[in-house]
């Protein structure tokens, strides 16, 4: 991946938000100043910063979706993932760094949902950067108290007999939800299944609808 695209274009090929021609803010001044001081003092280099941004841009929910699809189709992998999600993800080629990953599995009777009430912990190595709502005061405050109302705002309506398990990422673990595999996909390939898996379904704020028969 070339290192010179950051100045103008996002990885999707679109221009960045027009922040480059907006009035300079105090906090942007600070970012520029810190970055230059760190480079001058040999803490980092411009190339290292660009490389880190490339890495950030290369991570998307497609990584998590591949893990979920493998878990749906390979019982041995599913067991390994539930036992040690860090090691199982690493075996698939996803470096999840020093953080520990836990996979929690939805069943017909259990629905899992992830939140970080203390900050914004998120399995960014498997899902990319968190969406803005995940970092919002409303999501962080309400999910541990009224998860079903929060889910309803995302269009997820659960029957009363389903147990909701909220996971508050308070310390060193990161979480990914293995959503229920939709009916009607019994003969689907791993790749086709991965395309069905949404970001929100792996946070627990979405479920995967059964595909429409064409």
């Amino acid at each position, binding site marked *: 991946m070339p290192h010179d695209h950051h100045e103008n274009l996002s990885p999707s090929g679109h221009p960045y938000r027009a922040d480059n021609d907006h009035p300079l803010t105090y906090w942007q001044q600070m970012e520029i100043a810190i970055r230059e001081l760190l480079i001058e003092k040999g803490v980092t280099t411009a190339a290292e910063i660009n490389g880190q941004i490339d890495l950030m841009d290369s991570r998307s929910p497609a990584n998590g979706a591949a893990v979920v699809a493998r878990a749906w189709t390979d019982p041995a992998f599913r067991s390994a993932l539930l036992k040690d999600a860090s090691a199982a993800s690493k075996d698939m080629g996803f470096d999840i760094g020093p953080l520990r990953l836990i996979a929690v599995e939805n069943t017909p009777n259990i629905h899992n949902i992830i939140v970080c009430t*203390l900050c914004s912990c998120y399995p960014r190595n498997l899902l990319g950067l968190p969406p803005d709502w995940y970092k919002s005061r409303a999501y962080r405050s309400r999910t541990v108290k009224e998860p*079903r109302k929060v889910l309803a705002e995302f269009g997820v309506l659960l029957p009363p007999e389903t*147990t*909701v398990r*909220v996971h*508050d990422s308070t*310390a060193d673990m990161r979480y990914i939800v293995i959503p229920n595999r939709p009916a009607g996909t019994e003969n689907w390939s791993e790749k086709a299944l991965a395309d069905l898996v949404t970001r929100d379904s792996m946070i627990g704020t979405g479920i995967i609808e059964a595909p429409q028969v064409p």
Partner: protein
Amino acid sequence: MVEWVRVRADMPPGHVRTPVYLRGKTGWVERHLGPFPNPEALAYGHDGTPTPLMRIRFTMSEIWGTDTAHPDDTVDAEIYAHWLENIEQPHAP
């Protein structure tokens, strides 16, 4: 054998990783995670002595009261050992 624990109700100033809404609440160990550096020391630039961390499961009724809408739904959170006190089983699970 269910390991019942109560989260300490202490309210110190400064950085801790034990959410306020869980302090003083009773739950059980969902799983042991092993030792992790104590974030309360790391946050101030000190080496954190490795401290056992575990996932504790709480019911909504324990956290928010028995008149909560779905008392049997649960919240799991990671809590460091020095924030937990072992207790006898508080009531039938």
